[in-house]
Structures are given as structure tokens and as C-alpha cells.
């Protein structure tokens, strides 16, 4: 079992947003978490990644059987948890390849593996960049500076491709993407899926799920998962909307 979340509760700025989440993710699975704005989807991803603004007030979460809530965000990342950000940050003056190499080598070091020198890393990253159909010139550019919305999201998936996480949480990676970019991002994610890793997609829309087919669809509302089903649940949501599942406000 990769991820096991039980009755997880969390607050941000004194307000309880997560009110008891249960979620289990095994290797080889693809999960989709859907729901309207404010249902707690993005909060769940940030809490799992350890964002300092979010405070866990109850419940447990373990990663490969180990309590992850006591770990610092970088320790969770080194354990194999990856978050693709909804709003990727810009880092002026820092090249994409320098960032990728630092992140990669930091993981290598913590896994007791050899660091790659810039030339070796160059070879690796040139392979990985094909996954997201990006031009290698993006490697020399400052992280996300002057990138379009779609390029920023592809850049997140490039980081995922380089870091090869066990569990990737994609926080609204599809938002703001045109149909071509959506296809590229989805193809990229699909090509990275193996029986040893898993993906949790947080999304509003069913259309991403046409490209990355989930094994499970969870619907969140009011800080809880109110319904879990197979991929057909997403289609039903598309047809009927969310209202029929909503708990009384």
C-alpha cells in the first residue's frame, strides 16, 4: 500500500477544511479526486505534501506504511511523494536544468545513490524532455519565467519524469490547458505510469479522465469524500453535475 489516509482533518487559517478524509492508494492505481471549488481537493494535496500553512488536526496518513505527517515536506518528497502544482512558481535567473539537477541529485543522495555531473544529467534530461514534447531550449530558460500556462504545466510533468516519484499528486494540472497541451500532458503522465507507482489527479473536469483513465473516482464535498466509484462515476458527474451528491450545506 502506497498511501493510507484515515479520518484526516486539517485547518488553514483557523478554518477546518478537511473534515475526515479516508483514502487508500495502491501501487499501479490511478485515482481521480473531483468536486466543486472549495470542496477541499487542493487542500488535501497540500496537506499530504506538507505545506506549512495547513495544520493537521486529526486522523492519520501513512506512506508505504510509515507515518508521513511528522515528516518535513522535503522528507516526504525524498520518500517518493510528488506534487504537481496548480500554480507553478517562477524562479528568475535559475535555469530549468540547474533546478532539475539539484532536485535529482538531492533525491539520489538521500537514496544513497551517485549524483550525476552536469554532462551525465544532460543526457538524462534530454531523454525525459521527450515525454512532455518540450523543446530542449526550455532547459536553459529560467524556471517558468515567461512560460505560457500550458508550458508551466508541462514543466511540472517534466519534473515528475526526472524525479520518478512513487506517488504523484496532480493538482488541477489540466486547468488552463488547451486541448493539445492537455493531450501532451496526459500522454506524458501515462508514459510514466508503471505497476510500481500511482497517480492521484485532482480535477474539476471529466475531460482529463478521457486521456488518463482512472481506476477510482472520488467525489469530495464539504471536506469529505462523499462518493467513490469507477471511471463511469466521472461520466455520470459530467451528465448530472455535482448537486445530486452534495451534502446539505
Amino acid at each position, binding site marked *: 500500500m502506497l498511501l493510507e489516509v484515515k479520518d484526516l482533518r486539517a485547518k488553514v487559517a483557523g478554518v477546518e477544511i478537511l473534515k475526515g478524509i479516508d483514502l487508500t492508494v495502491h501501487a499501479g492505481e490511478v485515482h481521480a479526486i473531483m468536486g466543486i471549488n472549495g470542496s477541499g481537493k487542493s487542500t488535501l494535496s497540500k496537506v499530504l505534501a506538507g505545506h506549512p500553512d495547513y495544520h493537521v488536526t486529526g486522523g492519520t496518513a501513512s506512506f508505504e506504511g510509515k507515518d508521513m505527517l511528522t515528516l518535513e515536506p522535503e522528507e516526504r518528497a525524498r520518500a517518493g511523494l510528488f506534487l504537481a502544482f496548480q500554480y507553478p512558481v517562477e524562479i528568475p535567473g535559475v535555469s530549468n536544468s540547474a533546478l532539475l539537477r539539484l532536485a535529482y541529485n*538531492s533525491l539520489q543522495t538521500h537514496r544513497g545513490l551517485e549524483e550525476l555531473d552536469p554532462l551525465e544529467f544532460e543526457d538524462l534530461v534530454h531523454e525525459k524532455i521527450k515525454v512532455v514534447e518540450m523543446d530542449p531550449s526550455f532547459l536553459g530558460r529560467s524556471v517558468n519565467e515567461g512560460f505560457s500556462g500550458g508550458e508551466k504545466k508541462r514543466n511540472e510533468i517534466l519534473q515528475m519524469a526526472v524525479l520518478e516519484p512513487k506517488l504523484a499528486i496532480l493538482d488541477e494540472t489540466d486547468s488552463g490547458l488547451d486541448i493539445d497541451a492537455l493531450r501532451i500532458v496526459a500522454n506524458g503522465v501515462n508514459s510514466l505510469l508503471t505497476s510500481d507507482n500511482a497517480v492521484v489527479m485532482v480535477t474539476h473536469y471529466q475531460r482529463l479522465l478521457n486521456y488518463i483513465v482512472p481506476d477510482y473516482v472520488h467525489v469530495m464535498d464539504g471536506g469529505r469524500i462523499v462518493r467513490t466509484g469507477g471511471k463511469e462515476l466521472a461520466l455520470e458527474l459530467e451528465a448530472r453535475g455535482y448537486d445530486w451528491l452534495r451534502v446539505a450545506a
Partner: protein
Amino acid sequence: MSTALHNLVNQPYKHGFVTDIESESVPKGLNEDVIRMISKKKAEPEWLLEFRLQAYRHWLTMKEPDWANVNYPKIDFQEIIYFSQPKPKKQLASLDEVDPELRRTFEKLGVPLHEQKLMTGVAVDVIFDSVSVTTTYKAKLAEIGIIFCSFSEAVHDYPELVKQYLGSVVPTGDNFYAALNSAVFTDGSFCFIPKGVKCPMDLSTYFRINTEGSGQFERTLIVAEEGASVCYLEGCTAPQFDTNQLHAAVVELVALDNADIKYSTVQNWYAGDENGKGGIYNFVTKRGLCKGINSKISWTQVETGSAITWKYPSCVLLGDNSTGEFYSVALTNHLQQADTGTKMIHVGKNTRSKIISKGISAGRSSNCYRGMVKVGSRATGARNYSQCDSMLIGDRCEASTFPTIDVQNTTATIEHEASTSKIGEDQMFFFSQRGIDSEEAISMIINGFCKDVFVHLPMEFAVEATKLLGLKLEGSVG
């Protein structure tokens, strides 16, 4: 602010030790007798004493400038020791005769005084308190006509050159601290590159203040004749004292037709402790005169030290088609205050200037960019581009920008860009989510921010500057 962002600015100062060496000083305080004593100790010619006295008399009529965005208790100029030197055992015939204690001091600072051990291709003049200890590669440089020596030696050996250029860029009465310096300056570096000579190695001066209560008033003069070029580096440190020390230097650069001077500084004077106790008051006048056509002067500075920095390396673009550049990174932490920037004075036709300033403030510090771009009525086709970026770390520091633009010629083109950013929680969280710890993250963000300046530093300096910024910020972010 995240804990990671909090921890990065508190690395102790590494150069804070004091060398136990016998020194001889003149009594503290300043009057004409003290000036005569300094001049006599240095066996100076009469004209130089006159230069000093004239400056001193002018200084007496001047008021300490109060327009800078800095606050400090009034300086008692009678409490300062104006001349201090390690007691000379005898005249030095070679580098090997330098006092071992002194040599160890500089080795500890990473400035070995043996030529064979020096950074390859760099000649160094070493100034300890008020005097030059040694200059390396002097003989080798002399073969191609380059003069690189201490200011005192230049006064004796090349009086005509010194007389011709001293005070020609920064007149004795230019400002309060320049006048003070002109009255009491003790040593510094002199560098003369004759016509058509490209200096084959970087020239460097390393300044060290050791004696408590002493001020350092050095004078640097660099002249590049027609078609000559030189790359000059300056580094500085001081021991850790609870009292403040005054450093009031004057640097003058003169570039004749088609000459090129590149002047780089990494300033790491003691900055005081985290409560603002002690530290150097760095009140410096640096100015370059692009006297000839097509001449070029480029200032690059990395300012990380000093309790207070008051410094505006400037260019007077007199020759037609001349170019002035200013690249600056100023980092302040704890209670440091920096008021720094440049002046670009366009006089000649088609003169160009470029200003890139990066200010980083952390702790409770204050960091201010102050700049002036002036285009005279004769400066047809003058162009300036200025970019001033500030970065804030934490929420108790301050950054301000005071650009002044004064254009008297309608054909001039002036561009000014400015930005302020903050190392935010989101950036830090992004790095940690990628498995990168906070200190590496900050160092990466800062180096990215300063990249446009660092590319103009010579290799060794760029490496040193990168390390220094990391150390300075250790513990401030988090």
C-alpha cells in the same frame, strides 16, 4: 515566514579575528599637526602635504552629509586614529621577509603572499591598516611598462604621474568624506597602464583593517592610457570589534582614448553583530573619468559587509562614444544599512551607460538604491538603461529606490526598470516539495536573482561572491 527562510542569515563572520602584531600609530584625533606627522612619516614631497592641508582646511568648512537613508550616532572625528602601521622590523627586500604573523593573517584570509601560491594570473597589493605590506608580480609587470605598487611608493618613484592625476577625478573638496580622505589618506594602490598595453593579469588589492579604533583611508588611482586595458579587483575584511570603525576611501579611475578599465569589488567588512553592535562605516567615493573617446569604465560590486555602506561608484562620460557601466549586488542583513548606487554623467556625444542593481534585504536591515543619470546639453545621442531590482527576505526589512534622471538633451534615450520581489512561502514550499533543503533553495534563488551581475565578475570573485551570499544568509530564511 517559514522556519527554513528564517535560518539562512545568521552565519558568524569568519574574518573577525585580530592579528597580534606590534603597531605604531599616531595619537588619535585630527589637526594640522597630525597631518604633518603622517606626511613626514611617509617622507612625502611638499606638494602632497599642501594637497592634504588644503583638503583639511576645506573639510573643516564642510558638513557631514545627512541626505542618505542611513542612521547612526554622530561620529567623533577626534576619537579616530588616523594612522596605524605594523611596526616595520626592517626594510623588506623580498616577500619572504614579511612578518610571519602578517603572512599567516593573510593566509587565513585566503590571500597567500607567496607569488607561487597566488591565484594564478593575479597580482596582489596587500594593505594592512594604513600601509601597503607587499605587492606581488611587480617586477614582471614592470617589464611591459605597467606600474602596480602601493600609493606611497608611487609618490616617491613616480611623483609626476601621481601629481598629474591625483584629485583630477575626485577633487579634494568633492564631498565631506573625500575631503577627509584627501587630508589623511595613508596608502592604497597605484596602477598605471601605458599606451597600448593590455594588462595580462588581473590586478588586485586586499584591504585589511586590524587596529581597533583606527580608520582606514586609502587612496587608489588607476590610469589607463590610450588603448590600454586593465581588470582590477578589490577585496576587504576587518576584525570583529564592538566599536565602529570608519573606512573612507577614495578611488579614482582615468581612462584615456580607447582605454578600458574594469573594477570589481567584493566588500565584506565586518558588519556588526545581529544587534547592530560594531561594524565598519564604509563611506567611500569611487569615480571614473572616461576622458578619451571610446573609453570604457565598468564597476562591478558585491557589497555584503559593513554596518553602513554609503557608496556610489560613478562614471563621468566626457569622451565621445565613451561607456560607463555599473553592476551591483548589495546584501544587507540584521541591522545593516546600505545606501548605494551610481551616478552616470553624460557629457560627450553618443555616450552610453548601463546600470544593473540588485538589492537583497534580510533581517531588520535597510537597503537603498540611489542613482543619478545626468545627460548634459552637449551629449547628443546619449543612452542609458537602468534596472533596479530589490528582493526582500522576511517582513522586517526595508528596500527603497531613489532614481534621479536629469536630461538636458532631447536626443537622449533613457530607460528605467524596477522591480521588488519577496522570497515567498510558495517558492520555498516548491523547492522543499522537490526534495531541496531550504539553504540550497535560498542560495539558488539569490544566485538566480544576482545572475546578471555575477556574470560580470572575474571567475574567482564570482565563486567567492556566491559562497559569501550563501554564508551571509545562512539561517535567515526559514
